[in-house]
């Protein structure tokens, strides 16, 4: 492990974000081309290396605790990294790196790229902070860093679509974070601590009726972030209006971070395994409504956004079941979802880059122009619909079995039907984009440029690898699942056996 790796993982993108405007100014003065892009890619690659360097220790069963300013928990702010934290950090760093490489070409036609890369790195820093911190207020602050940067990124192109989407996103999401802050205030008033481990320990001795209100506030606030169904209205707008690279980052990494926060707060902090079944029910509603809404969409990015909502439902269902297999399946699905959802958004971006629209009514017959992209789209669509031998099948299968094992066969049946719906709307999308009649003006559309193709291909390979060798993926998520089930270990590691 690189020494001080936990703090470096947060600091690196933060430092780079502050440096980015200066680099932008210098590169314009000196006429250095693409200095920002190369710098940003170097930073996220270093970030990935830092996170990966923590793997051996954490997978060896250790909980890394890093004390900021040398203050002991529960007084000081600390970073605590167990298997769950690391899984999320790994997804964030990996997706961040790939999307950054993708942005290199995808964003080249835009102006104001200083701000784009600054905000991008700030989002990565915020997500990393949420993923690694062991302090509930710190989690809130990093959440806000992530959210404020994402409002700005949604509005990045300043067209009416992006402004409208950004305003909706901002008002709904700010309400959510206000709820989280109120929940934190109530917890602080209740037990007088902000450290997650310390809070978890002290909340065990508080009467359950007192923690219901903060728990409800947290679940509502985080539910808005991860777009659980009654609270999902901002998400399709934001994903449709944001640049595709940003939407890819959101759907791959930000959604993952939101679910992580939900799991950490509900299971570790409140120890509320009893409300898991409520999460599962919410997940069920989310998955069905998301899939039904996706069927009706005419815009590819909007369709992908609704399908993202639907996939989050699967994750919540698995995690909510609370069994070993359920949580493993849920987390594996979270991991897979980050892979293929990012990939599909990148493909949508590639189509927009070449054609200029993602409205499926105006597309068609692109298979002849973009054969590789079309093949990759098929891989992604089959993976997300849970068709073997792709990774979506492995994780969905685990969730189905977990549903039956937990004595909820109805859940499994509904999840199966939703899977069929998923396949249906992706076939529709495939049909109206790559097959069928090609409008005349699309006849000279070219294949996706290679730098954009590279991250998509890499993700497609991952889809196949984890589909053929599911054991590999399960090995990756098992430490995370053990961390979810073992909140006692987390608490004693942070508080030093207190």
């Amino acid at each position, binding site marked *: 492990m690189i020494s*001080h790796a936990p*703090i470096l993982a947060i*600091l690196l993108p933060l430092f780079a974000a*502050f440096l980015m*405007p200066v680099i932008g*100014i210098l590169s314009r003065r000196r006429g250095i081309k693409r200095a920002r892009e190369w710098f940003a890619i170097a930073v996220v690659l270093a970030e990935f290396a830092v996170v990966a360097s923590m793997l051996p220790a954490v997978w060896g069963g250790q909980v890394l605790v890093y004390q900021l*300013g*040398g203050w002991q928990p529960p007084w000081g702010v600390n970073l605590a990294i167990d298997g769950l934290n690391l899984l999320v950090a790994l997804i964030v760093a990996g997706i961040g790196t790939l999307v950054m490489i993708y942005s290199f070409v995808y964003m080249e036609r835009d102006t104001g790229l200083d701000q784009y890369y600054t905000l991008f790195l700030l989002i990565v820093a915020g997500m990393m902070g949420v993923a690694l911190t062991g302090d509930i207020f710190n989690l809130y602050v990093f959440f806000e860093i992530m959210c404020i940067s994402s409002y700005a990124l949604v509005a990045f192109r300043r067209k009416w679509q992006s402004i409208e989407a950004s305003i909706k996103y901002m008002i709904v999401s700010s309400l959510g974070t206000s709820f989280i802050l109120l929940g934190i205030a109530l917890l602080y008033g209740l037990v007088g601590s902000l450290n997650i481990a310390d809070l978890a320990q002290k909340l065990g001795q508080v009467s359950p009726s007192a923690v219901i209100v903060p728990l409800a506030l947290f679940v509502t606030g985080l539910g808005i972030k991860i777009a659980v169904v009654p609270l999902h209205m901002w998400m399709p707008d934001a994903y449709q209006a944001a640049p595709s690279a940003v939407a890819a980052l959101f759907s791959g990494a930000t959604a993952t971070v939101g679910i992580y926060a939900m799991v950490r707060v509900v299971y570790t902090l409140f120890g509320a395994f009893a409300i898991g079944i409520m999460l599962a029910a919410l997940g069920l509603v989310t998955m069905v409504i998301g899939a039904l809404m996706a069927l009706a969409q005419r815009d590819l990015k909007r369709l992908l956004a609704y399908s993202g909502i639907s996939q989050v439902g699967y994750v919540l269902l698995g995690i909510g079941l609370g069994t070993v297999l359920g949580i493993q399946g849920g987390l594996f699905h979270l991991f897979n979802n980050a892979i293929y959802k990012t990939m599909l958004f990148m493909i949508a971006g590639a189509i927009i880059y070449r054609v200029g629209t993602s409205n499926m009514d105006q597309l068609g017959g692109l298979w002849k122009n973009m054969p590789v992209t079309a093949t990759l789209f098929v891989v992604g669509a089959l993976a997300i619909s849970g068709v073997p031998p792709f990774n979506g099948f492995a994780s969905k299968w685990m969730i189905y079995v977990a549903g039956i094992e937990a004595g909820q066969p109805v859940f499994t049946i509904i999840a199966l039907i939703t899977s069929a719906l998923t396949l249906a709307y992706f076939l529709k999308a495939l049909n109206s984009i790559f097959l069928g009649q090609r409008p005349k003006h699309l006849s000279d559309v070219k294949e996706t440029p290679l730098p954009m193709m590279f991250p998509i291909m890499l993700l497609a390979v991952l889809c196949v690898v984890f589909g053929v060798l599911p054991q590999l993926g399960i090995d990756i998520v098992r430490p995370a699942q053990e961390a979810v089930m073992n909140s006692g270990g987390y608490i004693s590691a942070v508080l030093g056996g207190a």
Partner: protein
Amino acid sequence: MAGMTVIVRTITRLLFPFTFLFGAYIVLHGHLTPGGGFPGGVIIAASVVMLLLAYGIERAETKVSFLQAEVLESIGGLAIVVLGLLSLLLGVAFLQNKFPLGELGQLFSAGNLPLLYLGVGIKVAAGILLIFYAMLFAFRGDEK
């Protein structure tokens, strides 16, 4: 934006140095008295915004241009991170106070805290100013 009447301009000119100084005082005494980087930075930004309102944006920009504010903001942010990293170089945890502590109640005491407040102050002052500039530019686009 055109600016305001001669009364406003005169009073602003008189008040500007004092407001600025007061902000600087709050920032520099952050480790001793209530206040610190954020309130002090806001006061400094307010003094420039006062100029901006009284004289119009063109005049204020001669004092601090958009680009300068952007660079200053970056420097403020970088200063904080660098101070934190310095602690790592000194072999202790991030942001841990390893500098000589000095005597309690003195201006030059408390290790890295005054430096941190200075960084925060610069960052906040430049940041708030940038927000004002950005909004004014948005309006300026309207007039065209």
